[in-house]
């Protein structure tokens, strides 16, 4: 089985292929179709698509028999879920207390300005998503930036500019 779901963005209309066999594997095999593990199923789905496609959630709703509106409620409640496609690269800047005291707020503003996106948003070319997180627990090496799951301790605006330069070169 396979189907498409339309994810309309401002510039163009993108079609996302949904692999229902893969969804079945996540929902039924990995988590036994158990409603209580819905949050983790959604995390697994997000790992596949880098966001939560509506069609995938509709399918999830049918398989585990949870109303779609309840799934939407969960998807909009937890900060790690995204209903919009995320960028190819994800830059997360920690804004926990220790990082905040060492200027992570300025780093967020800098990247937001340079890339022209608000924190939590993705660039139009889907290259970068800028996120903030309330503490990754690495306060000793504050401020911390996490680029594509790799931690960068004692990050500076210069460190971040390096990433952005590399992205621009891609």
């Amino acid at each position, binding site marked *: 089985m396979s189907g498409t779901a339309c994810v309309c963005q401002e510039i163009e209309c993108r079609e996302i292929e949904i692999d229902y066999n893969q969804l079945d594997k996540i929902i039924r095999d990995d988590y036994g179709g158990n*409603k209580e593990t819905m949050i983790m199923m959604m995390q697994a789905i997000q790992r596949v698509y880098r966001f939560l496609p509506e069609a995938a959630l509709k399918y999830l709703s049918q398989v585990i028999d949870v109303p779609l509106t309840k799934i939407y409620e969960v998807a909009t409640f*937890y*900060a790690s*879920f995204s209903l919009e496609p995320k960028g190819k690269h994800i830059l997360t800047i920690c804004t926990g*207390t*220790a990082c*905040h005291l060492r200027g992570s707020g300025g780093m967020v503003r800098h990247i937001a300005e340079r890339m022209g996106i608000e924190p939590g948003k993705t660039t139009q070319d889907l290259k970068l998503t800028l996120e903030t997180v309330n503490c990754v*627990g*690495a306060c000793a090496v504050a401020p911390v930036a996490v680029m594509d799951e790799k931690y960068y301790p004692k990050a500076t605006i210069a460190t971040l500019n390096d990433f952005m330069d590399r992205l621009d070169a891609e």
Partner: protein
Amino acid sequence: MIEATQTALTPSEVTKIMSTEALAEYRQKLQAQYDPNAPMIYVCCGTGCQAAGSVDVVEKFREILVGSAWDGKVVPMIKPTGCHGFCSRGPLVIIEPQDIFYQRVTVNDVQEIVEKTVLNNELIKRLQYKSAGAKESITKASEIPYYAKQTRLVLKNIGRVNPTEIGDSIIRNGYAALAKALTQMTPQQVIDEVSSSKLRGRGGAGFPTGLKWESCAKQEGLRYVICNADEGDPGAFMDRSLLEGDPHSVLEGMAICAYAVGSHRGYMYVRAEYPLAVKTLTTAIRQAEALGLLGKNIMGTGFDFEVTISTGAGAFICGESSALMASLEGKVGRPRPKYIRSVEKGFRDSPSNLNNVETYANIPSIIANGGNWYKSYGTERSSGTKVFALTGNVFNIGLVEVPMGISLMEIVFGIGGGVPNKRALKGVQTGGPSGGCIPIPHKIPDINVGYGKLAEVGSIMGSGGMIVMDEDTCMVEVARYFVNFLVEESCGQCTPCREGLTRMKEILDRITQGDGREGDIELLEEIGKFTNNFSLCGLGTSAANPVLSTIRYFREEYEAHIRDKKCPAGVCKKLFHYEIDPDICTGCGLCKSKCPVKAISGEKKKVHVIDQSLCMKCMECYKNCKFRSVKIM
């Protein structure tokens, strides 16, 4: 939920342990494999050190150690461990048996360490630790004041065991307390022992653990044992270190609790932001199950206890007990509006015992050594030790475990090494976003850290975040930061928290922007008291604490922002400017070279000046002036 994936057991041929005697035998067998004189290299692989490159250091050690010819010498062993706690100096390497401490080790240092230190007992000066201002470097880890002044009960294994090898834990008496409880004690005796230790919940509220277990054990029907590992307080990472560094102590504590309250199912709710902790735990559970230390018929005693890991998805509120249980059920993590405790009706509406990671990790030693032993640490009302995450403007950042009742000044100066950059201490924030700022040393000379004392000065113990703030910290900005955090993390269901916090943020925003009005302080106090009384859950009823405590101790700073439109600490950009004091300036030119916008002019050895129209208040000149001639005006 998350099933453990393939992991190698150590040693791999082990079969299930079917009696407590078999566990003791297995421990002896493992101990016999170790030569106490053999060199052992411990490399910290906690999140902090990993971020600083410790995994590469371990790999390099392995590569060199395997590739070398040892000519009959004992081959050194390399051990990647959990967080040693001294994160600001990472990556850390400790070499036993000499207890040599090396800091900030890079891949390029590894060859030298093996050749000089491991093989020839020669020290490498540049990698050694030096206290601030001291001339002599310190060789042994145990002599570094940061470690020497701590009392490590709960952190005792961290840094000494490889968290992915259960054998390491077993050698250090892992699961011995569980064996003792299962074979030599009744559930009631276990509860009595925990009660007599006077251990109080380490997650925040400080509820007596024994009492909680007792009321859970009294309930009928299926019971659950749940571990709250949703450590959401920004600036706190005690639980992360425990899970990443010594997962078996936590699991053993949960199993003992399950036996005491009569449960067979355990859940571990870990926040999604801790991927390494989830991975380590998954491995630990799989290994313990393979050895028969968890799962069905534990150690042949007939007692079953299974633990499942469940992960959060990014919501601070899920640290609240009823929200956590809703989230465990796969729902939105909103606190339940019920005046029923979770030990009566919690997860799946069944009696549930919820404790946090550090609480469970304390249990094995209490059972092994007795409640009286534990009580001998700490004070009458706050027994035992507490792990704090010491961060902020302090030399030694990391985890510190100290007996309750210790002086706060001793933590900041004795262990933390004081405030860097010759700045003065302004206060210490404890208890995370629900806590308060304690104005040591100026307004309160010092306090003894305990549940009661912290509450007295308007703060809380919380889960153990301890943020040191120096004179350059603006208390209004700090309050605004925490309120902003809580506005983002409020679940939004009840009016006082949702609307009240939003308005407090609005007011604090305008004060820090220079638009504060007369009456704003009073309005903040009014809303703050209201949200503390009228909100639905623990988050709401403590949300105003950072604001109320900063107003209580730093009211004049609020007044300066509102009346004089000045930020005395030089943080709120619209409310100050820098000036160079002509009497102090030596004309060294450092500020001029550091200024990114070329706003500073002046000839060498002559007084420099700042062009206010260009200055963007980035703080570079202020931070870098060796003579402190740059003044906040």
